[in-house]
């Protein structure tokens, strides 16, 4: 079970573990991480599980596809390191992944 770190909008640091194969969004939701709304449940249809991935980790993730790209482009305050956490499946080598949850979603 890889451990990942969420920095919540308040600045609080939340370390959570989740099984390999579930998405980063599911890991957040099951553990009640603040600010991850995830309304559509992982269908890439709502842009409410937006996170900023720490730059050190960005290159280790599979790049955004066109659908995710389009969702993020008009999401709340997108940045270069923006990702939808529902599109990041947890793998063993993501142990220690660090992401920041934006102040708003959608």
């Amino acid at each position, binding site marked *: 079970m890889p451990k990942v770190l969420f920095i919540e909008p308040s600045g609080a640091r939340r370390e959570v573990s989740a099984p390999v194969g579930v998405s980063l969004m599911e890991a957040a939701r099951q553990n009640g991480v603040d600010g991850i709304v995830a309304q*559509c449940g992982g*269908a890439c249809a709502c842009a409410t599980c937006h996170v900023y991935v720490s730059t050190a980790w960005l290159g280790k993730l599979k790049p955004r596809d066109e659908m*995710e790209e389009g969702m993020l482009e008009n999401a709340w305050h997108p940045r270069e390191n923006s990702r939808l956490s529902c599109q990041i499946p947890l793998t063993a080598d993501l142990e220690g992944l660090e992401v920041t949850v934006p102040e708003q979603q959608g």
Partner: protein
Amino acid sequence: MSTILIIGGGQAAAQAVDTLRREGFDGRLVLTGEEPHLPYQRPPLSKQFLAGELDADRLPFRHRPFYDGHRVELRLGKAAARILRDTRRVILEDGEEIAYDRLMLSTGARSRELTCPGAQLPGVHYLRGIADAAAIREALAPGARVVIVGGGYIGLETAATARKLGCAVTALEMADRVMNRVVASSVSEYFAHEHRTQGVKIVCNTRVIRLEGAASVERVVCADGSSYEADLLVVGVGAIPNTELAASAGLECENGIVIDEHCRTADPAIFAAGDCTNHPSLRFGMRVRLESVDNAFEQGKMAALNMLDQPAVHDRVPWFWSDQFDNKLLIVGLSQGFDQQVLRGDPGTRGFSVCYLKGGELIALEAVNHSKDYMAARKMIADRVKPDADKLANPQIPLKEAV
């Protein structure tokens, strides 16, 4: 305030529980649901769950420790029998009485059923809950002849999944095109073409009049005399809001439990949220009943806030989605009453949108594999933007710049 009771354990309930505790509600919180499951996501039931790509333990919004940790008393697998409004009590079907200070009804909707001869035969399925989906999944063996009745979201998503699993799939639709109630004809045509390309037989303008079979369904007979051999049927012909409990308690119901923009019924102690509600859409100036994740989520949250006497208004632009094969349909807004429709892009490129205008304002948009237009439209519709129709029609111009 001491007790909040929620009847109906779906998306709206899950959200209300979360909001109530997040906002500091410290009293007794009881959640009853007819199904024996923790509140779970329904959208995957016709897609990843049906395809066997997603296990049942990934369906719940939250696992058991969340409810225990938030002191939620669960009464799962138990329907409510009666609401006694004068004494603010609910009686469950097993006789348990629960006194409430605030009550939220999130009873959802149920599948509309076929009434033609043979409709009670085994092998006729509806898709609403986990048990339904599990039963269908079991029957979707490669080569099985699957007849889908109804070419709406549920029917077409199920058709796509069954086809991916190697079934021989026929979808029957009464109207002249699939998804006719919810999308533009160009979007219908696109999806019908995608299904046909993948080997789904789509038949429109056809009405089922009889099901035949000995021990289970074997054949579907239509009004025009055509018939289709079937090992199983999946029927997706709409849903009926579960309003009986509310109506029997004397609450006004008319295509849904009637609520105001605070999710409140005429009884100040009783609120309602989700598919079961008839509610005002402030943005569109009409009353609507919506069957969607978004609406259940937002109303669950708004009902929770208002139950805590934190005045909150449900004023959102609704959105919907559907996944069929590798296509994603994203819809935002309500197109009823539009006076102009503008196509953006070429369906042949597999990515395009249809814009709906009313009095110049963008009121809805259907995006096929085009999340960028969809996200831009969400803001523009909420902000009542009046785009330039010529610029809209030019897909080279980003939607948000088409003003």
